């Protein structure tokens, strides 16, 4: 073991002296993370808030009720509502709202509700009425929400009417048969002037129906956010992407020793062959941990990345380093020379990183690509960090387990091949 430490110490001294490891381990990932935080950071702060205008040409009871319903949106912080005087103004503002580049200083809206004159009257009289939604083509979600709100209001209005009309024929029939009584309806003594007309009955039924309630309620389930903000996500993505280059400096050291001829000396020295391999693994591990630690701390301090529970982050980092070591060690074990190894390592690092979503959050897209991503340590590392955000420490155990499994399986394969190839001197 002493020999392994000696070799690792020597390697680390070499790697720290040669600035390449510094470039790959710290400068490049941190530089990109900082740049990405400038580019993607503003997206995180953008909260959804729709702007709606209402044109109330009616000014009646129902349009007032609708205005109250819209007030609910304001209370929920989903929209701000303004009243404008004419359809033309509303249309103009929505048109402006559709242009994402219009800027903040121009009056704009995502959708307009137009309630025509006579709307309340028609609704109250049980006649057909029409409301118009003018949606901005460029703000699909806001327009959709506006439509939903109006639709819901309309359904609510229709509910009583539908209920009355469903009951009315039977109720009338019942009155005819049973002498003009129906449950809840007492039109007065038989033979009273003006027998029960459908209109009278409907009005009575409507009062009753209005007190019915929707048997379905929608309840919010509290959900935490197991997702990283853009800055943290891309910092973590860059860290794990470049980890695969940094760690390579360690395990590929075997090939470098071979190239330099110093492998012969290590083999001739009174140290076991395993301790040479372990020494290289230690170098990889130390470089990986060192680079990740610096990146976690620096991205937290410099760009406000929020990695989460330090113990959880530490577990994931260690597991990710182990996974990277295993995969890269396989390449180092089977490669003919250092150049071939570094080419293959770069290919593997890039493909795994892209599939694992270090540049683009593929996991959130779901589907086949996301499933494919689970064959990469990168995806598990990012998933683990995400789960850490809104969950317990225990929630990251599957990710830690998956990363360790990558490391152990590939590490085992590498160990098998390295036992054979470590003795090669050229």
């Amino acid at each position, binding site marked *: 073991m002493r020999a392994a430490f000696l070799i690792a110490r020597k390697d680390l001294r070499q790697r720290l002296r040669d600035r390449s490891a510094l*470039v790959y381990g710290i400068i490049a990932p941190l530089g990109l993370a900082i740049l990405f935080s400038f580019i993607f950071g503003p997206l995180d702060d953008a909260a959804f808030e729709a702007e709606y205008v209402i044109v109330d040409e009616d000014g009646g009871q129902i349009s007032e009720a609708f205005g109250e319903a819209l007030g609910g949106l304001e209370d929920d912080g989903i929209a701000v509502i303004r009243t404008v005087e004419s359809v033309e103004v509303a249309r103009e503002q929505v048109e402006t709202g559709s242009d994402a580049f219009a800027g903040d200083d121009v009056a704009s809206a995502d959708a307009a509700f137009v309630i025509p004159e006579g709307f309340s009257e028609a609704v109250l009289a049980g006649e057909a009425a029409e409301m118009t939604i003018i949606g901005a083509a460029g703000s699909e979600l806001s327009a959709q929400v506006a439509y939903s709100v109006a639709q819901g209001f309309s359904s609510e209005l229709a509910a009583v009417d539908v209920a009355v009309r469903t009951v009315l024929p039977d109720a009338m029939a019942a009155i005819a048969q049973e002498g003009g009584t129906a449950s809840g309806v007492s039109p007065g003594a038989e033979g009273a002037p003006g027998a029960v007309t459908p209109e009278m009955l409907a009005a009575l039924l409507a009062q009753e129906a209005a007190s019915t309630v929707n048997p379905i*309620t929608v309840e919010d389930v509290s959900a935490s956010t197991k997702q990283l903000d853009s800055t943290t996500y891309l910092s973590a993505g860059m860290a794990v992407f470049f980890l695969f280059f940094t760690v390579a400096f360690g395990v590929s050291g075997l090939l470098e020793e071979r190239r330099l001829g110093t492998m012969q000396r290590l083999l001739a020295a009174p140290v076991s062959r395993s301790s040479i391999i372990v020494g290289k693994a230690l170098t990889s591990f130390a470089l990986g941990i060192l680079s990740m630690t610096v990146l976690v701390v620096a991205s937290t301090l410099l760009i406000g990345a929020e990695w989460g529970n330090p113990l959880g982050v530490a577990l994931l980092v260690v597991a990710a380093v182990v996974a990277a070591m295993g995969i890269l060690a396989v390449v180092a074990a089977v490669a003919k020379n250092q150049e071939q190894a570094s080419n293959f390592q770069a290919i593997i690092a890039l493909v795994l990183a892209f599939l694992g979503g270090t540049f683009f959050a593929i996991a959130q897209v779901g589907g086949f690509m996301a499933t494919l991503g689970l064959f990469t340590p990168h995806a598990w590392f990012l998933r683990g960090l995400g789960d850490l955000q809104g969950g317990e420490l225990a929630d990251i155990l599957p990710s830690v387990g998956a990363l360790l499994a990558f490391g152990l399986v590939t590490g085992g394969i590498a160990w098998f091949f390295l036992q054979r190839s470590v003795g090669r001197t050229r």
Partner: protein
Amino acid sequence: MKKVFVIGWNSLTRLVRERSNVFFVFILPMLLVLVLGAAFGGTNDPRVGIVSVDAGELGDDLVGRIEAAQGVDVRAWDSREDVILAVERGQLEVGLIIPEGFDETLRAGEEVTIEFVAQPEQDARALRNTIESAVTEQGALLRAAAFAEEQVDAGFSDALDSATQLAEESERVTIEQDSVGEPFVFDQMGQFELGAYSQLLLFVFLTSLTGSTALIQSRQLGVSRRMVSTPTRIGQILAGEGLGRFLVAMVQGIFIMAGTAIAFGVDWGDWPGAIAILVVFAFGAAGVAMLMGATFSNDQQAGGVGVLVGIGLAALGGAMLPLSIMKIFSPTLWQVAHVSPHAWGIEAFEELILYDGTILDIWLELAVLGTFAIIVFALATWRLRIAITR
């Protein structure tokens, strides 16, 4: 002049002979366009995952009503836990759980609660209104059926059927929909276009920069010595190396353009315009590669810096986050982005692809890219002369 071509051609053949280069230059970009297109191309409607297991006819009816709403992408999920986790992980914008026995419970006249899941502080919370609207719509019928049962002892299911029919016939308050303005530009684009032109620029540039290591190696291999003995050949060698980088960039660029057009049906718009963008952009990329080759003396370090600069400029220039979105969220950054040649290239491609422009409409972008190329080439030549003769 012939020697210049020999040196340039040499760069190209060296590139193709090395198998791992074939991967980086040709396979990886195509793979990325595919991955990005498959993952991000197509609809961007918010995803609503609905768990409706054994929810019966009324469950299906409710799902149908939600599906009918515009602008939501409804997907069926199997379990409550999974759908909540998917929402928490951002794989769904909204989750909705319709409980088991939804149908029976409602028909028995009892109340039912359905659960709505969205991340706090997310746009998707607004979609609660869409769900509520569908629930209210269905609820109106259920209320009518329950009312009929209570008032006239009608069977719930029969009453529900007649209520459903009546609701369809009566259109008390109709909602007219009108849409004004232009839809957001990216919603009009094909599945692979965005990935194709942004990755084209990213890779052409990145390959050039990492190719600068070849220049450093050939410098180390004694170009300088040759220089001293035959000083007249400095210019030729420089031109040759520059041409080599340019040829590599062009071959890669044309491969990506033709490849994505054939394999993924990417529409590059006006071909003369597209080729013109590629030519000036590749010229600039070759210049930056020469500049790096002249400035660095350690090829491994240059490789690392090349990756940093290549990805960095691409990201800044809108190859990762579309410029239009950048412009909305951070207009200052959008202005800064224009120091990157990628931004000009991307805007030129967008002019061709999104707005059906022709080469005449992108003269400004071409001029900027051309100027950039001339400046970096001049700088590179100057630096390289110093580096070699020192």
